[in-house]
């Protein structure tokens, strides 16, 4: 084929998305007279089958060797049209797109202005297309293993799916046991399944699966590498208990000097534990851990004559000499399933969460109603002789959600349903309780949700529409000040207990994972997916996937579905065994390179090294790029004074003509 560029320009109407504001005919006419343009057409939907066929036919019949598609954003359909080129026998990198939708027709009202701008953008794409070169994507092998960060239901499900498919999984969980937040729930909506009953079998599976290496009480320290070849360093924190000897009998916790003195994280502070503890009886692994921040021996250097746990343990499993251990593993894919934190209710001081013992968060209430909780499932407030069963109980929804004043504009999705569930459980345990729920809206969107909501209302639980302004104490009672907006009546409601339906927030330590993996955050600060509709489990980094509430608030069915989706995406990589790495890498002109090593210093991936070459009898040192490690950022190119290193598809010689075209006119 003749190497002279023969460019085909295709202007998409995108229905009326582009055609309503941009004069597609006039743009096509303009494109047709640009240098080297052989064909210029416009069509209603370029990405559709007939649209792509237009391109393929022209390549065949007109001998086109460069294609310009002026349509939506390349972030949308660049991959689609690259495929079209491949199917027509053309190198996929002979494609250039002009974004005349997201960055033109959708943002400019004036038709003249939008059309003129579209013409300029098309001219810029044409001038670049003229200078494009064919590129090859190199293939690398994929390590047949996956890293799952997070041992909640999302991580567990993803790990099980991948392991069942026959691939190795390394699961890293920060706390001493897997299970996550789901292990702390009593019943789940709308079916009222016992949460632990459906979760614990999966927890046991994950610990005993031959393909899963479970590392609890561990953290990911560092991840380097690229898709198919991630090098992971895991820190296994010291439990100060030898897990091979520990039988989980619990005698150490019974003997501990701090028995019943340390607030339990699992019980959300509603119950107490010892300094040596198992988070909950069904913990997996069923081993004990010493809390290094509370243990008297670790914080003060001695515990009486000798630590009681050491003496009491029948297997001599307590070992205060233990140190953190580091493990290196290599994986092909990473799944981030780190879950969420609940909103800190003290940030709404008007609700008195910090001031009054009988204002609880929903998670604290969850522990109260749990049969395995601190009160054995009885809803009881106060202690000892002062214990009493509340009769007047109120729930307040949207605490920390849909609230700009605390920086959470989003809806947390699960609170309407869990409030209905908790209200139902209250009614079940205290039949003569008077339960009311203060709401702004009721979102019962899922399968069985609306039916459950109806049932709860039929049980006599009152829904009052109005967002309370404050809660204060009057004598023994709490008073909720609100307005019933349906009756247009202000009211003061005297209750014994208030439960705040706190929203879901991104983990407070989410920055750690961001730094590890270069993840982005959405506006709501949860981890960002590659595309909100079409790629909800992918991230901008190839080979890294999201599952569960780490990506956004959701309930258990959606979490499990997403975890299965993430597992499936990882399995695509693992089962094919090979992956293509991006082709727009940098390359050095060794003739002009003067060996200053600036590019080597600049490259964030260490993809460039110096090599000795013989130039006309002299041994000189020049730079050379490792094309597999190069990610195509181009930082080296801008740092090279001699212009010797250039990024394919983004060469200086390809960008400067674009500036020329954008300036003229």
């Amino acid at each position: 084929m003749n190497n002279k560029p023969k460019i085909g320009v295709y202007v998409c109407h995108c229905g009326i998305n582009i055609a309503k504001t941009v004069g597609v005919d006039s743009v096509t006419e303009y494109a047709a007279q640009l240098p080297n343009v052989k064909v210029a057409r416009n069509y209603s939907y370029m990405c559709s089958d007939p649209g792509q066929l237009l391109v393929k036919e022209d390549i065949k019949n007109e001998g086109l060797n460069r294609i310009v598609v002026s349509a939506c954003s390349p972030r949308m359909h660049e991959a689609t049209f690259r495929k079209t080129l491949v199917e027509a026998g053309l190198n996929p990198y002979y494609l250039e797109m002009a974004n005349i939708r997201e960055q033109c027709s959708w943002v400019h009202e004036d038709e003249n202005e939008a059309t003129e701008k579209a013409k300029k953008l098309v001219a810029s794409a044409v001038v670049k297309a003229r200078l494009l070169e064919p590129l090859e994507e190199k293939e690398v092998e994929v390590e047949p293993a996956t890293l799952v960060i997070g041992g909640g239901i999302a991580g567990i499900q993803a790990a099980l799916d991948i392991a069942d498919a026959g691939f190795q999984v390394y699961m890293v969980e920060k706390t001493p046991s897997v299970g996550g937040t789901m292990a702390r729930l009593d019943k789940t909506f709308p079916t009222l399944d016992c949460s632990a009953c459906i979760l614990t079998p999966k927890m046991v599976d994950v610990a005993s699966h031959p393909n899963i290496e479970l590392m609890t009480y561990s953290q990911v320290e560092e991840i380097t590498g690229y898709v198919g070849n991630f090098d992971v360093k895991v820190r296994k924190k010291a439990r100060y208990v030898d897990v091979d000897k520990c039988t989980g009998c619990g005698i150490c916790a019974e003997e501990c000097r701090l028995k019943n003195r340390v607030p339990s994280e699992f019980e959300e502070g509603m119950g107490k534990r010892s300094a040596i503890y198992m988070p909950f009886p069904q913990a997996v692994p069923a081993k004990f851990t010493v809390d290094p921040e509370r243990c008297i021996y670790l914080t003060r250097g001695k515990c009486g004559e000798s630590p009681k746990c050491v003496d009491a343990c029948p297997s001599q499993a307590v070992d205060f000499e233990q140190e953190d251990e580091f493990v290196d593993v290599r994986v092909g894919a990473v799944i981030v399933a780190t879950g969420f934190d609940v909103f800190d209710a003290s940030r709404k001081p008007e609700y008195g969460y910090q001031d009054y013992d009988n204002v609880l968060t929903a998670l604290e209430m969850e522990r109260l109603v749990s049969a395995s909780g601190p009160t054995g499932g009885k809803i009881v407030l106060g202690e000892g002789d002062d214990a009493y069963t509340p009769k007047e109980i109120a729930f307040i929804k949207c605490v920390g959600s849909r609230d700009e004043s605390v920086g959470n504009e989003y809806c947390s999705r699960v609170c309407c349903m869990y409030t209905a569930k908790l209200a139902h459980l209250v009614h079940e345990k205290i039949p003569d309780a008077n339960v009311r729920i203060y709401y702004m809206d009721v979102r019962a969107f899922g399968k069985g949700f609306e039916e459950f909501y109806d049932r709860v209302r039929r049980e006599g639980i009152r829904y009052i529409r109005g967002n309370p302004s404050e809660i204060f104490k009057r004598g023994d009672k709490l008073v909720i000040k609100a307005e019933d907006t349906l009756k247009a009546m202000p009211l003061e409601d005297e209750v014994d207990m208030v439960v705040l339906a706190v929203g879901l927030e991104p983990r407070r330590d989410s920055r750690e994972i961001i730094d590890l993996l270069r993840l982005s955050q959405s506006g709501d600060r949860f981890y960002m997916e590659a595309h909100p509709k079409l790629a909800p489990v992918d991230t901008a980094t190839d080979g890294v996937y999201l599952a569960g509430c780490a990506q956004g608030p959701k309930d258990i069915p959606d979490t499990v579905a997403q975890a299965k989706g993430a597992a499936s995406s990882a399995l695509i990589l693992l089962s094919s065994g090979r992956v293509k790495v991006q082709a727009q890498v940098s390359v050095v002109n060794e003739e002009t390179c003067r060996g200053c090593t600036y590019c080597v210093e600049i490259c964030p991936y260490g993809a460039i090294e110096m090599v000795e070459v013989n130039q006309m009898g002299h041994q000189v040192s020049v730079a050379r790029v490792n094309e597999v490690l190069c990610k195509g950022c181009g930082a080296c190119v801008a740092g090279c004074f001699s212009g010797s290193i250039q990024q394919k598809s983004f060469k200086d010689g390809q960008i400067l003509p674009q500036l020329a075209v954008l300036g003229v006119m």
Partner: protein
Amino acid sequence: MVDLDKLRTVAKETVSRDDVKYLIGWSQGTFGFRVSPHFVKEPEEVDSLTFSPLCCNNLATYLTLTEKNPVPRGEEADTRKVALMVKGCDSRAVVQQLVEHGVGRDQVYIIGCPCEGVVDVKKVEKKFGELLEPVQASWENGKVSFQLPGGQVESLPREEVLAQNCLTCRYPNPVVSDILLWDEVEVKGNDDYEDVKELESKSSQDKWAYWQDKFTSCIRCYSCRNVCPLCYCEDCILDRLNPTWVFRSTNVAENTAFQMARAFHLAGRCIECGECERVCPVDIPLMKINRKLYKEVHEKYEFEPGLDPETKPFQASYRPDDKEDFIL
């Protein structure tokens, strides 16, 4: 102080070494106040070497000579050392070249000459006229003494004859050397960047008018680039046609682009030797531009190039807390 006998002895010894290709120093020029760089290969030639306030040339620029002539078949490339005589500023150029691997530390034998400042030939020629006979000069008690043709000796205060950047010089002693020829001198200069600040205080229009006036005279002779010890790309990006960054026409728009590009490429690298301004045939105040970026790098990032051979190059490094007050 300056000991010419010591200089010549050391030079002779050095040139006689087996592992030294040649020595680069200064010798008397052919006329007036001129001094010429001298490549000494034979020990006999060392007698013409000198060191005086007239030695303005920065010899470090010859270290990166593109001596890459093809090696004839059967022969090996000559990889012996080059011995180089350096003043304070010259040594900083060598350090910067070391940082950038333009030359290897084992490729150069550095002979350090602590310097009390060299003259600005234009200032001196204004005072004495353009003389034909060669002139000698020396530093005497804080002044510069000229032995003019005809036997007359004139001593002038340093402020009147020294180059501007010698008056603000803070590094008169070589920062790196294999041998120091005489005692280090006292640091007399201090730099407030007055010349830069004066221009900074003008309005945008005045600044533009000032520079357009200067850049109009540029004839694109590339003397500034050729003499600069840190401009040593074999194929300069500003010469290239594919792609063409600047056109070769000498209209003011292209000249401005050329000067800005060169100044930017020198940011964090220029060691203020002042050679560029010295050799410019149309008297463009090039140091004013280079010093502006020197000041910015020094003040904003607390970095001065050419002092530490182990440091990372400025334009290949960053700090996560770099200032960003202008960024939206």
